[in-house]
């Protein structure tokens, strides 16, 4: 259906729009600035911050531009005296509901509140801070809601309930006393996905930061090597924080900036992802060849999904692949294989992982992932934390000379980089499983297939019926835990399922650069597939370094210890 075109006037200039569009939609498309805080393109419009108010000719009261549909002939003023009083007063009220903790705030350089205060020359202390005594609620070591900073927009509640359908966060109380808390319902637990943090406009919901710990370590190494590595999805998003285009591949810049921050060696988690693919593809083929094996096999590299299974569906634990995740694989390899090559002890290495994820902080703390009492990953920083550290240290990210990651464990295949997108883990495993089955000559028909486009994209649930060595393989890919229900109800239909708790996969992760939205995630996704094509090697098993490492680990009889893990039923808060 073609939408009817309309003409409206904004600040005395004519603009075209379409019937049904909000005033804010038309204004943003035409680069007319209207401030907004509670508005997020992925959430239902709530219109509660009242910062985007505009005056419409003929109406006494103001209207919120996010919620008001533009009509043909409407005359709108974005900065009339009424708008100024109201917008400025609302902002001043919001400033005083948000205790400024700017010094340690990872949003300091990109703070919407401060930028609005500057833009309109507003005194942020017009009213007294009123939330000094509010509590901070911490969920595992991943996510926190700092009540002293909350501006009551409830984006976090909507992200948790409407997008993720977890319903963990609730508004408690009413009026000026209300606060966002965990639900009292004992059957609901946080999965640490961090979507609340990704949708909070003021960093009240945010990751539990680890950057100051890491700073301390870098200042005083105590003779240890400090290693950093970054996830596949990080390379296509961090540039946004420095004005680079969406989807721009910043691998070389990230490496250079991490070196500037003082890390001794930089690795690429792509290598870990290739390892994961090998382990997971092997397990998939084993399960498919064993009539007694539990199917469908379900991916486990998303720690929020693992938490979901362990808390909500422990009956599905046997379905999870026992393969460890890329960051844990890589951390383990660095503390064993790489340490050995350099004549170091694993204990003398501190690993810091840069992740698009808040749940990875929880994962890194899991006891059963330890290797001889060593944590494979000592600290996890979100992409936001890294961007903050780079800015804080005055590093001119954009203009750095690109550098390469450590060559002992290379920067992975094309199959590794697509781990960052929903469907990527499955596609990587299928590329390898398909080839392995061909070479093993077990297959009746051999399709050496590279791309599996049917599992790519932003859709909540993608299904495909594929051919693996002449046998039919039914797969499902869940993008966003809010879409899980339909797949869980029909498990029998599938042999292999990928689940990523965040919409779009890790590129839409809870630790990603803000702002993030479905549209932005799509652009990051495109960046990953461009990078995949750029790689000469696009299958994990063709990465010779990976094969060398796996041989080493097998020879040292460390395979199970380094490559696999186990799961157990989890209680609330575990």
């Amino acid at each position, binding site marked *: 259906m073609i939408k009817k075109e309309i003409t409206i006037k904004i600040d005395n200039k004519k603009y075209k729009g379409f019937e049904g569009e909000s005033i804010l939609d038309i204004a943003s498309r035409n680069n007319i600035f209207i401030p907004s805080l509670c508005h997020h393109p992925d959430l239902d419009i709530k219109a509660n911050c009242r910062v985007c108010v505009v005056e419409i000719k003929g109406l006494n009261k103001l209207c919120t531009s996010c919620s008001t549909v533009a009509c043909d002939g409407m005359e709108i003023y974005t900065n009339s005296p009424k708008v100024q009083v109201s917008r400025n007063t609302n902002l001043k009220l919001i400033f005083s509901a948000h205790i400024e903790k700017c010094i340690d705030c990872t949003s300091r350089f990109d703070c919407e509140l401060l930028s609005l205060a500057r833009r309109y020359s507003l005194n942020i202390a*017009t009213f007294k801070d009123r939330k000094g005594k509010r509590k901070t609620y911490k969920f595992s070591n991943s996510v926190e809601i700092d009540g002293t900073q909350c501006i009551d927009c409830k984006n976090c509640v909507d992200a948790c309930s409407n997008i993720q359908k977890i319903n963990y966060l609730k508004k408690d109380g*009413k009026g000026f006393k209300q606060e966002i808390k965990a639900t009292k319902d004992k059957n609901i637990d946080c999965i640490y996905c961090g979507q609340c943090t990704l949708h909070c406009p003021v960093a009240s919901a945010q990751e539990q930061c680890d950057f100051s710990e890491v700073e301390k370590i870098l200042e005083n190494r105590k003779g240890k090597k400090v290693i950093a590595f970054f996830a596949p999805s990080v390379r296509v998003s961090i540039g946004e924080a420095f004005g680079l285009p969406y989807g721009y591949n910043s691998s070389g810049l990230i490496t250079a900036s991490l070196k500037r921050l003082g890390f001794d060696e930089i690795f690429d988690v792509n290598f870990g992802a290739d390892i994961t693919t090998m382990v997971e593809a092997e397990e998939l083929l084993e399960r498919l060849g064993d009539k007694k094996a539990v199917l469908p096999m379900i991916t486990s590299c998303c720690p929020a999904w693992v938490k979901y299974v362990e808390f909500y569906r422990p009956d599905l634990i046997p379905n999870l692949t026992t393969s460890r995740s890329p960051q844990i694989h890589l951390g383990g390899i660095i503390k064993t294989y790489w340490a050995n090559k350099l004549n170091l002890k694993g204990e003398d290495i501190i690993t810091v992982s840069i992740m698009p994820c808040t749940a990875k902080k929880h994962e890194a703390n899991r006891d059963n992932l330890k290797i001889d009492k060593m944590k494979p990953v000592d600290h996890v920083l979100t992409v936001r934390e890294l961007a903050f550290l780079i800015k804080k240290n005055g590093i001119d990210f954009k203009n750095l000379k690109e550098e390469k990651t450590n060559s002992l464990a290379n920067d992975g295949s094309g199959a590794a980089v697509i781990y960052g997108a929903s469907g990527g883990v499955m596609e990587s495993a299928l590329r390898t499983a398909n080839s392995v089955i061909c070479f093993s000559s077990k297959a009746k028909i051999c399709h050496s297939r590279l791309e599996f486009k049917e599992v790519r994209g932003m859709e909540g649930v993608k299904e495909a019926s594929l051919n693996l060595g002449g046998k039919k393989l039914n797969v499902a890919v869940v993008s966003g835990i809010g879409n899980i229900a339909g797949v869980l109800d029909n498990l029998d239909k599938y042999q292999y399922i990928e689940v990523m708790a965040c919409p779009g996969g890790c590129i839409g992760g809870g630790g990603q650069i803000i702002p993030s939205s479905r549209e932005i995630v799509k652009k990051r996704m495109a960046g990953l597939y461009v990078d995949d094509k750029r790689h000469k090697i696009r299958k994990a098993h063709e990465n010779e370094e990976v094969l060398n490492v796996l041989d080493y680990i097998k020879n040292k009889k460390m395979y199970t210890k380094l490559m696999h893990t186990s799961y157990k039923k989890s209680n609330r808060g575990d």
Partner: protein
Amino acid sequence: MTRNILSEIKKAALVGRGGACFPVHTKWEAVKATKGKIKYLVVNGAEGEPGIYKDGYILENYRKDLILGIKIASDFIKADKIYIYLNLNFFNKYKQSLNREAKKVGLSDKIIFILKPINSGYIAGEETTILNIIEGKEIGPRIRPPFPTCEGLFGKPTLIHNIETLYNVSLVAQERYENKRFYSVNVINKNKGVYFLPSDLSIEEVLVKTNNYPSYDFFVQVGGDADGQVLNMNQLDSCVSGAGSITIHNLRNHNPEKLIKNWLKFFKDNSCGNCTPCREGTYRLYELFEEQGIDMIRDPRVQDLCDNLYLSSFCALGSAVPNAFLSYLKNVYSPCNTCKSCKYD
């Protein structure tokens, strides 16, 4: 029974008696015109604003007529279900007898009684908030549009009326409607009575006719003790606005600080918390009062807060917050009013 109830209502010019005075026939036509197999009628018996007692009075005295009005409205829109939403007091007192009346007209199968949640406050009488409450959602208003007449309860076209409005519908249907309304007349914190009188009387006429015209200097708050307009003795020739209450204050004996404090405290404690201007604004008005007392009126932040409440609140209750406070300052307050030996007196 009248043949064409809609045109009768239109002719009688019935308006909503919840306070907003919206023409009744317009709502009916809108619900009727909206396509949909399932439509709902919601009866608002939340009556929560201080100073207003008329819905309780109708429930006490005219339940049979009320049920008739409900039936007529329900028949007109072919309501699938009728939700009668009552505050705790009304729920305890009248639920059973209303149900008995409903049975007599064959309506009881359709009726569902809903108790206004305890401590839900003032906002829980706002119509879209009631829809959220019935649906089990968060207590707070909805964005309009969509209007409840198009997309109301559970997304279906919904007619929402106050108790007095539906009572009036029954009077129209019985050809007994005489363009009267209920007035609650109070002397600060005390209800003098509910009176049924022509709706076009001036405030002064109501006071005179009900023998409530004070012998002392006074001022009134009209249309609810929380957000009603405050008027002085020379401003009594207008009609009674809103939900029809008049509360008399003694000009010489009243305590301005206490009065202002009561208003500000009421709104601070009753704001649902949804939007910034109301949640934060009512809190700050009260805070400034606590800090400065009546001197707050010279603080420029106060005017900004009040303007902002009116201009940008999410719902009508927020917009109405400054009414009492500002009209009191404009029409009544003078530092001299209460000091007997004032040199300006």
